[in-house]
């Protein structure tokens, strides 16, 4: 069995800030909006959130530091868009644990259903 410190481990430590960035409802909400409506300005993203523009900017910067979004200037506006590769990594974490449960449930199913026969 080989589970040494592979290149995968390096990639994973990289993924850690992603989880921190996602641990907030407002930030997840911002990501969801960017995913459905495409690149948006800070002004746009602040509308209807009930949160101040300054707070939204702070959240967006947190997402930016985690590599989840990137920004560019358009005139006086900052435009934000998703960095999809990064999100993929974070999503895979729970997917993997989830697949372990699938395997265990598969064995449980076989265990209880075989014995029924």
């Amino acid at each position: 069995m080989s589970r040494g410190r592979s290149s995968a481990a390096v990639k994973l430590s990289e993924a850690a800030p992603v989880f921190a960035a996602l641990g907030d409802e407002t930030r997840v909400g911002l990501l969801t909006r960017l995913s459905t409506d495409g690149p948006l300005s800070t002004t746009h993203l602040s509308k209807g959130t009930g949160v101040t523009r300054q707070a939204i900017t702070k959240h967006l910067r947190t997402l930016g530091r985690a590599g989840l979004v990137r920004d560019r200037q358009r005139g006086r506006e900052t435009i934000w868009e998703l960095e999809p590769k990064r999100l993929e990594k974070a999503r895979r974490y729970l997917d993997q644990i989830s697949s372990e449960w699938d395997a265990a449930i598969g064995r449980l199913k076989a265990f209880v259903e075989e014995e029924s026969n």
Partner: protein
Amino acid sequence: MPETLNSAPMTDTDKIEKKVFLNAPRSKVWRAIADSQQFGEWFRVKFEEPFKEGATIFGRITNPGYENVKLEMVVEKVQPESYFSYRWHPYGVDKTRDYSAEPMTLIEFMLEEVNGGTNLTIVESGFDGIPLDRRAEAFRMNNNGWSGQLKNIERYVTGT
């Protein structure tokens, strides 16, 4: 890609929920979960003691690749034939690391009788409390150890 954002794991990093229909009587499913010997059969772990509310139970994993790794389980609640819960350290498979000070995740099994079979719901929650480096570790372990297990799913689980 946009659609990945709308999937459940993306918006909820704290828990995993599984539902499955088992074509077996509820009493049988209950024994498979609440009897530590039977639990060990399908979960691939060997326990020395029975599960008991409030008890900390130790076991040894028998899953290929993780043989003899120690597993610690704190049994929370046992409500016969309907609810069973315990806590553990998810992916506490690094023998050189002491997990005892770290928060545990809560695993809940909920059973419901239906059409001559049993609906089983499993929820593991509390991942947001797990240190970030550990989550990365779990991911690494999974990536190396569990990818092959994926193929078993299709063979056993139907309609999920």
